[in-house]
Each structure stands twice: as structure tokens, then as C-alpha cells.
């Protein structure tokens, strides 16, 4: 599929694909760097392999899901207080 040349290069599907690949390579490199760089561990768990990677990923998922669930109770139309 040819990209629409009128689109800004940053939003062309092919560029987005490249950006994803680049991003994943950087992520992988960061995790693998744990083999080379030894973090001084303060609590034990923070010295485990790729700790900051999985901890960042999991806690962010948890926060997004928690916000979503809380939203079912707390979300109202944005005109709620207008009357």
C-alpha cells in the first residue's frame, strides 16, 4: 500500500511502523543493558533483572485499569454541574 503523499511524514503508516520498531529496539536494549550494568540494590527487589522495566510496565497497567474501573463510578457528562 502506498502512503498518501499529502500526509505529514510523521503520521504516514509506514513511518509509524518504523517508529514502533525503533521504540521496541530501544526498549530491548535498555533491558539487556542490565546484563552489563550492575545496579546497586537498596532493597533486594530493585536489583532483580530488568526491575525498572517490568515494574514500570505493570504499575502503569495497574493505574490505567484502576482509573478505568473508578471511571465507571465517578464519570459524569461534562455538563453535570452546568444547570
Amino acid at each position: 500500500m502506498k502512503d498518501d503523499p499529502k500526509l505529514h511524514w510523521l503520521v504516514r503508516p509506514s513511518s509509524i511502523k518504523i517508529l514502533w520498531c525503533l521504540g521496541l529496539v530501544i526498549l530491548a536494549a535498555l533491558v539487556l543493558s542490565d546484563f552489563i550494568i550492575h545496579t546497586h540494590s537498596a532493597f533486594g527487589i530493585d536489583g532483580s533483572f530488568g526491575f525498572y522495566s517490568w515494574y514500570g510496565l505493570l504499575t502503569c497497567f495497574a493505574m490505567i485499569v484502576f482509573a478505568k474501573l473508578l471511571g465507571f463510578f465517578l464519570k459524569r457528562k461534562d455538563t453535570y454541574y452546568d444547570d
Partner: protein
Amino acid sequence: MTIDTFPPGVLLIFGGLVLPFVSSGVRKTIVLLLPLLVLWSVWQIGDGTQLSLSFLEYELSIVEGDTLSRLFATVFAVMVFGGGLFALNQKEPFELAAAFVYGGSALGVVFAGDLITVFVFWEIMAIGSTLVIWSAKTPQSYRASIRYLIIHLLGGVILMVGIVMQIQNTGSAEFEAMKIDNLGTWLILAGFLVNAGAPPLTAWLPDAYPEASFSGTVFLSAFTTKTAVYVLMIGFPGTEILIYIGLYMIFYGIIYALLENDMRRILSYSIINQVGFMVTGIGIGTEMALNGAAAHAFTHIIYKALLLMSAGSVFYMTSGKRKCTDLGGLFQSMPITCICGIVGALAISSFPLTSGFISKSMIAQAAVDEQLFLIWMCLAAASAGVFLHAGIKFPWFVFFQKDSGLRPKDPPWNMKAAMIFFAFICIGLGVMPEPFYELLPFSSNYEPYTVPHVINQLQLLLFAGLSFFLALPLMKRTLTISLDWDWFYRRCGRIVYKLITLQILNIRQKLLDLSIYLIKHFIRLTHYYSGSEGTVARDASLGTSVAIVVTALAVLIVFIYQF
């Protein structure tokens, strides 16, 4: 009294009061030059009391300098300059005047050496900030400013009662570290926390700040919450409860910002989130933690103002569009606004080489030093969460996501200049933290740029970013707001008020009905006895009449004679 002992805050307040009465050209000159003069005068203030005044039997320290007050005053002056530059094309002269009074009173608080002076400037700050919101001159901003004022006056009353009790207890008005062992200090703490945006009074901030004008919100983000951080640092360092209040604020800010659709409300929630980091640091209370809180207050003022300038530019150039659902794709036509917004977003997320990295990490380091495992885990998760809710969400939904079809240009030169200036400070502090560390209250040899620290932080942030894009379907924007504690006074309070009013109306109606019934009955009775057919109106014989009159006179005579 010379210029170097003249209170810089009062100088700024006077300047603000002059602004509405001068021509546009003179106003612009004052707006740009006065903050620089104030900045210079801040650095003329040495340690200890510089200006005192007798009030009743107390000796008030109107200006008392130390490292911490100069640090806060410096960033306040820089903020007034940057905010003023950004607001040069604000057509409402009243707003800048209010902003100068507001900024001046914040300077007054950080140089105050006693509780009475703190209180006086605290209240001027409430009025100045309310007028800034009011200056947007929309019905929404008017209503929000009144709600805002009510909360802050309430906070002021709590603070005043606390101060009076504290002075009663100790016999001194001096503003120094306190222990929460009596009602007075508890009330002072509560009064301070109202301005920090602590629970349960969190909602005033995202309610009111986004209703100000494109430039008003920039000023608002800086002073109220950060003076609260300053007074907490002086009054309550190491108070354990602040750790938990701070953690609540951190996660409250993240969760509510994730749910929010309005870009300026997203950034407002993130103010509470960032102040939460500082409050937690103050609660930990070690030198490292207090340095971290002070440094973070400084860097936060700059990058949050930058973010709100970026949002304000979008707001200004799209004639008031604020909702993520209406925006998107703006990077194509607003490159400078977009890049400056991204710099602010990276700084708030503590990316290496930005100001947030060199300040926030000190608070986490303090938790490590004190072996506070759970608190450290919370802070680490929260750092990732900041990138999620402010670092990516704001730029993504405003400048990228879908193409909204909007093609606004970058804003006028002064707004661009203000953004670029603040973006430079964000990066400059991040690249060269050493001179900045010299300004902190405690000397330390903290080194933020170690290889493991940079790698760990990048892992944390970039994987947070990955989770954002993986969970994007869950983040779809909706035209909604989220209920907060303010529901209790905006809705529940109104329901109770309505119920009570209805009851009062009901009782009033019943009383009216009863009165009408009684009046009618009285008229009927009168008619019965005194009407043409009534007992009283009937004719009596002459003899009977004479007898009645004589008897009455006799009774009267006896009565008068007796008494």
C-alpha cells in the same frame, strides 16, 4: 529603609496596583522590568531579619532572609517575569495587575519571619488569585472564582484560629518548626494544607485554575501551592502524616488526570500530583528529602508553567479549545508550541537531561537512605505514572493522536519567547545541576548522573510509555468529568439545602393557612355577637341601661377610693 531592605513582595504588589492606570506601552515596560528589579532586590536580602515592625505587643519580621526563602523568591520572580512576557498581549490589564499582587504576596509569605505576617500575605494571595481567575470574565470563571474564594477564605480562617492558639500557647508569633501536639498547630497545618491541594479539599484546584484566561492559568499554577510547600517546609519538616497525605495526592493526581478530557484540567491534576512529591519529601524530613522538595518546587514551577503556556497557546490560537476530543494533530502547524510542550512534558516526567530528573530523584533517594521500602516503591510507580498522565498524555492528545483538521499557527512572538526561555531553563538545570544545587538549603554531594540511575530511569519511563500505547484503547477520551470531593458541596450540599428550603416553605405555608383560618373565624364570631342580629347590638330597655351604667360607675368609684 533603603531599596535593599524594601520588601520585594510589597514592591511587586505596588507595581501591580499601578498597572491598570498607565498606558499600554508603560504597562509593558513595567511588566518586563519590575520582575527583574524584584529579582535583584531578592538577592540583596541577607540572612536574618532585615525589616521589623511593632504590632500590638509583637515584633513582626516582615523580611527575614535565608537560603530557602531566597530560593523560592528567585523562582517566583523568574515566574512573574516569564508569565508577564507570556501575557503581554493579554487585553485585560486587570489580570496582570492581579497576577502581580498575587506573586508579590507569595514573595511576602516566603520572606515572612512570623506567623502574623505569613497570615496577612496569605490572605492577599487568596484575593489576588481569585481576581486572576475572575479576569477571564466568563460566567464559568466567575462561578469558579467564587467557589475558589470560599475554600481559601475557609482555609484562612482555620489558619488564623490556629495562629491565635499557637501565640496563646507559646507567647511568641515567631514562624519556626512546630510539632502537631496541640489543636493550634494542627489547625495551622490544616490551613497550610488547604493551599497545597491536600485531601479532602483537592477539587478547588482543577475546578478553578482551568477557568482562568490563557495566561491567567500560567500564574495560578505557580504561587499558591508552592508557598504552601514553603510554609510546610519551615513549619512541619519530618511530620510523618505528610508522607501519607503526599502519597494520596500523588496517586489522586495521576488517576484523575488519566480520566480527564480537558487538557488544562489534566495539567491541574498533575500540579497536585507534583506537590504530592514535595509534601512526601517534607514528611520524610531528612536533609536530602528537604533539598529534594525545595529543588522540585523550583523546577516544577518552571516546567509546569511551560506546560500551561503550551496549553495556553493552543487555547489562545484555537479560540478557546481545551478538550482532547476536539484537539489533535496540532504538531503540524504549531511546531514551537509542540516542542516546548514536549520539553515541559519530559521535564515533569524526570527524563535525564531535564530539570525534573535532578530534583525529583533526591526525594526517592531520601526514601532509600531511610530504608522506607514501601514508600520508595510507591514513589517509583508514581514516577512512571507521571510520564503516563502528563508526560505522554498531554502532548499525545493535543499535538498528535488523530488529525482534528485544526491548523492554528504558533502564537505571537512574546508567547513563543516565554516558552523558549522556560524550555531553556528546564534543559539547562537538567544538564548543569551543580550551580543550582549550591542554592539549596543543605549542602550535599548528591550526584544524579550515574550510569545505573540514568538507565533505571529510562527503563521505568520508556516502559511506562509502552504501556500507554498498548493500553490506548482503554484511554479513549470521553466528554466527561469525574466526581471529586467537591460533589459534597456542589451537589450534596445543594440537595440538603433544597430539602431544608422546601421544609421551611412548607411550614410557612401551613402557618399562613392557619392564620387565615383564625382571622376568618374571628370575623365570623365578631359578626355573630356584634352584627345587626348579634347579642351586643340588640336594643335594651332604659331601666336596664341605667342599672348597668350606675353599677359600672359604682365599681369604678370603689376602685379609685381603694387604691
